[in-house]
């Protein structure tokens, strides 16, 4: 059995208005891998992510998730959406139920599980993100960082094969950012993280992929990508002031 969880082949896509965002993307993720998807604004990152659970349909090429081809077939689409868990950038888009518990339970309920199964799954997911004590609170009474963690729990509870995070560290204060990284590090799951936060990519993902101009411009070890000055410059990627990836990688060991 090959261990490729996600495979994207020659994926090209143009929006209905004629604007083409992807020009042939090839990338594959194996089980348990953590990959950062980097790239300047407008590189097509969001467009790519929207193909991974069938929100957008490939104009050319194909996307295969755990052996299932992403296409318009309604039955497989439902299964694909369970297997590909996306945590959106704005947690308010993801938390729509009156309480945290009900929100996390929403997915399992739709899978037709029994009440006790749902209870234990929700309990587990909320524990993983450290939000169990807030289970009876209303989402809009939580801080932004807490809401993002609950949003993560709503996706984890579906036991996805692959977890996709869209800008997980955006709008978080440094402490919440660190807490989230600790949670993510503990998860045993295939991870694809779209981010502009390069130190975060280095901390969490051994491998990085640069999407630029609608194609994969680089694919390699995160440290190697971040230290390739010419590559970085070419794709409008910049490290924060004073951040030395080599030094950071050293101190991580």
């Amino acid at each position, binding site marked *: 059995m090959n261990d490729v969880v996600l495979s994207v082949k020659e994926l090209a896509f143009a929006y209905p208005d004629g604007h083409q965002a992807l020009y042939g993307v090839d990338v594959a993720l194996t089980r348990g891998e953590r990959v950062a998807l980097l790239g300047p604004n407008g590189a097509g990152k969001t467009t790519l992510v929207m193909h991974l659970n069938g929100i957008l349909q490939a104009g050319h090429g194909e996307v295969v998730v755990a052996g299932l081809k992403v296409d318009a077939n309604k039955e497989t689409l439902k299964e694909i959406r369970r297997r590909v*868990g996306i945590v959106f950038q704005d947690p308010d888009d*993801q938390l729509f139920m009156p309480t945290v518990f009900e929100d996390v339970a929403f997915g399992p*309920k739709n899978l037709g599980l029994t009440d006790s199964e749902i209870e234990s799954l929700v309990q587990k997911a909320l524990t993983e993100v450290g939000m169990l004590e807030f289970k009876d609170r209303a989402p*809009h009474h939580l801080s932004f960082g807490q809401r993002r963690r609950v949003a993560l729990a709503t996706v984890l509870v579906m036991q996805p094969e692959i977890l996709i995070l869209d800008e997980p560290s955006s709008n978080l204060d440094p402490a919440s950012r660190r807490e989230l990284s600790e949670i993510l590090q503990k998860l045993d799951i295939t991870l694809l993280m779209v981010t502009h936060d390069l130190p975060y990519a280095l901390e969490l993902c051994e491998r990085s992929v640069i999407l630029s101009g609608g194609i994969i411009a680089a694919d390699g070890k995160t440290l190697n990508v971040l230290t390739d000055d010419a590559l970085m410059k070419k794709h409008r990627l910049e490290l924060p002031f004073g951040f030395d990836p080599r030094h950071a990688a050293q101190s991580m060991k």
Partner: protein
Amino acid sequence: MGTQTAIEVRVDVHEHGHKLGDHLYIHKHSRIHDLHPASKLLAVLLFIIVVVLTPNTEYWTFGIYLGLVLSVLVISKLPVKRMAKRMVVEVPFVIFALMLPIFGREPDVEVFGLSLSEAGLIAGFGILAKATLGVMASMILAATTPARDILNALAFIKLPNTLVQIASFMVRYSAVVLDELQRMKVARESRGFSARGIQHWRVLAQSAGALFIRSYERGERVHLAMLSRGYRGTMDFGNERLEKKDYVAFLLPILALITLIGSLL
């Protein structure tokens, strides 16, 4: 670093706005709070129906209804002053009711030198009395039942699931949308705009339009998030059964009905 004495600023907590949906609920421990939400909802609904059916000229009957509602208020241990303040939502009805005697047909009674329409006076009284009783009963329901329990109750009495879902999203997102509105207001004012007159309506209308588009787009994103978690068009709401003790709630409409029948005989 030296320690600085904290300067405290006293702020009167205002209730409108941000926590719409929850802010009406006042937490107390009372018989009324403990009742099953659906029994309360049904009781209020039936009570309002009885009130609306009462002929406008049955002045004493309305007095007894008022007594019934006030006793519920006492049993619920709700702060009377706070509840009284909330009655301002009724103001538009009051204005409408006050206009009836003035603009009603055939001015035929003199009150303090004003010639008023008797039919208008009676109709005005009817609207005022019925609206007041209805608003009071609903206010007590809202103050003794958290918003999500009311949603569950709506589902319990078999309101179509789609409507309960819409109400549920309203409770969840009204705060988000109000925040967005507030941010847009701050952005406008930071650039020197203040709405003073009709010449500024254009800007306000544009803001409203922008808010609508944003909310619509958010709706699409929420829908996607729901789909990716297996949403198939229906949502489950709590479904606790009614117990014997919950039937006490129906005393309110039953007593009201007895009063009505008694006054008509």
